[in-house]
């Protein structure tokens, strides 16, 4: 049963390429106005999933509905209502900003005044008015992404798929880009975004982690950090002798340890392990200090979840 505010509903979706299972029996739902972050290493099946949701690739089994249309049975209805920005913001270097926008307007059957109005609006919203007649090939990286985004938004899609929209973009452009995305979500557009930047993942209302074709975790960033697989991260905050790292090796309850500036983050299985850690270090002549529990970075959480999977 699809709720009225469910934009995407995926049930047991599977896609095989020969013997290789690219997407392995995944299920999830995305609600209207959500920014849904899709994380996972390269080759884990994210792009294949997105291609199926866009109606480009037929699922091997399972179902996926986008905006109420079954992507396998009615891909054209889906294509008309979604926006898709592929990896690397593919543009034609020998066309100008304006020519790109006119082209995309035409693809979505927008002509004349309606196209002109939408093009003017989006050129302004993504900050490209000054560069309307510039060739895309001469645009700096950040502006290329903005143009690609504007092209996918002209026809006012209710659902937007962004595949690594900010890869290779400087931090300031990234922030501006995310301001646009957040603004879109606030005005009701549903967004599915893949990224490798975990600071960006914090913008998402929901996250899903894909690994080797399977969804191995999903939930809000806060919920994921509290998952038992994530363990408990303790901080040893004193000028650390790097030799401590080797002392931690071989302790069965320590999952991982990494340096953060002058501090050391140690992930252990449970909160009770703090005392065992202190004792183990003391026996080797090190003072562990107060060992505060810290909120782990998403990066550590994902490393831990992937390891546990």
């Amino acid at each position, binding site marked *: 049963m699809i709720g009225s505010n469910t934009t995407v509903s995926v049930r047991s979706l599977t896609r095989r390429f020969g013997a290789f299972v690219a997407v392995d029996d995944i299920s999830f739902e995305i609600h209207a106005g959500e920014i849904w972050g899709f994380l996972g290493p390269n080759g884990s099946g994210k792009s294949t999933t997105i291609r199926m949701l*866009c*109606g*480009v*690739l*037929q699922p091997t089994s399972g179902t996926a509905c986008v905006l109420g249309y079954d992507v396998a049975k009615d891909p*054209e209805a889906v*294509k*008309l209502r*979604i926006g*898709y920005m*592929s*990896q*690397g913001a*593919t*543009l*034609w270097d*020998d*066309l100008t900003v304006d*020519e790109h926008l*006119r*082209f*995309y307007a*035409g*693809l*979505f*059957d927008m*002509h004349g005044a309606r196209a002109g109005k939408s093009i003017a609006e989006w050129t302004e919203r993504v900050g490209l008015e000054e560069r309307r007649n510039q060739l895309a090939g001469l645009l700096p990286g950040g502006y290329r992404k903005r143009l690609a985004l504007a092209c996918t938004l002209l026809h006012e899609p209710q659902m937007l798929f962004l595949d690594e929209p900010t890869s290779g973009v400087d931090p300031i452009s990234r922030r501006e880009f995310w301001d646009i995305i957040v603004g879109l979500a606030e005005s009701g557009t549903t967004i599915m975004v893949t990224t490798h930047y975990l600071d960006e993942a914090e913008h998402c209302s929901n996250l899903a982690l894909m690994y080797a074709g399977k969804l191995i975790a999903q939930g809000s960033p806060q919920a994921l950090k509290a998952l038992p697989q994530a363990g408990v991260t303790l901080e040893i905050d004193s000028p650390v002798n790097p030799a401590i790292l080797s002392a931690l090796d071989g302790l069965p309850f320590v999952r991982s340890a990494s340096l953060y500036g002058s501090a050391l983050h140690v992930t252990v299985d449970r909160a009770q392990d703090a005392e065992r850690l202190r004792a183990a270090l003391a026996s080797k002549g090190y003072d562990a200090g107060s060992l505060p529990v810290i909120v782990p970075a998403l990066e550590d959480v994902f490393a831990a979840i992937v390891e546990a999977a």
Partner: protein
Amino acid sequence: MNFRRVWTIATKEYTQLLRDRRTLLSTMLLPLVQVVLYGYLSNDIKHEPTIVWDLSRTAESRRFTQALSNTQYFDVRYSASSMGDVVAHIDAGKTLAGIVIPPDYASLLHQGKSPQVMVAVDASDATAARTALSVAQSVGTSLSHGMQIKALRLAGLPVSQQGVDVRARAWYNPGLRQEVFIVPGVLALILQFTMTFLSMSTIVRERELGTLEQLIVSPIQSGELILGKIIPLMTVGFINVTMILLLAVFWFGVPVTGSVLLLYFAVFVFFFTTLGLGTFVSTIAKTYIQAIQLIQFFLLPSMLLSGFIFPVAAMPKVLQWFSYLVPLTYFLTIVRGIIIKGVGLDYLWPQLLLLMLFGFAVFTTAALRFQKRIA
């Protein structure tokens, strides 16, 4: 099929074509350069440099040499003083032919015997050698013929004018000019090359760029995409054909004796084969380089089998069957038929019909494969 979307794609393609000056220039100029090159390089066997070793040094031997020169095929430029001289000139490529007239040439003639004249030809180029030999042979025959008549008259015998009188007429190309044959062929060949190449690269490049992926996710249908891409290429093709025809008429003096309208219609029909082939290759190749290598596999045999260089009728039977599988063969027949012979649909309809069938088959296969590849 939404024609406004087709037009959207076509507009983009036109813009890109006009903006890419280098490709545009080479697409427009290369055909012209090729026509000019082929037009002039066509190997007419005329005024071939020739060396003569005249051991007879008589009025009779000079008459023989003069007769050879008169044919316009031999240009007696060198006079040898030894056999070594003759060999050296031919070895060095300075002359195509060497002629040796024996010392007893005149005396044998007067005795009523047949002197032997040696004509040696550099047969590295078999066509040139064959022509030179047959011309030399006919010079000898006609000289002998003249002498026999003269001898009969002197003897007071009646000279019969009976005998076979061959009246040779070179139809369609009375001047036997090579360019009349070559230029229409070059038109067909260039059209095949340019159209196949452009249609292949326009799709492969989009795939390499990743923009094809972006287009597939839009509501555009693959048929609309292909049509939008080939309409601008057809424009380029028609411009090419027009330029080549203008060059043929005003530069080489090769007039179009048949219907220009029919010629353009045949060009249009041929587009479907060439553009279809390019599209088909683009669905197999992953990269531009791969596509170029693949396309050679189609283009080279089709050029050799089509009758562009070697007449189909002169090919071994098995190769003839293959040549009937090459659409260029039919297109060549049509183009030569219209331009040189001035014949119309009443004679060319079978070729045109076959060309249509080929176009339909190749283009449909390509479009279906394209659709499958992107879906």
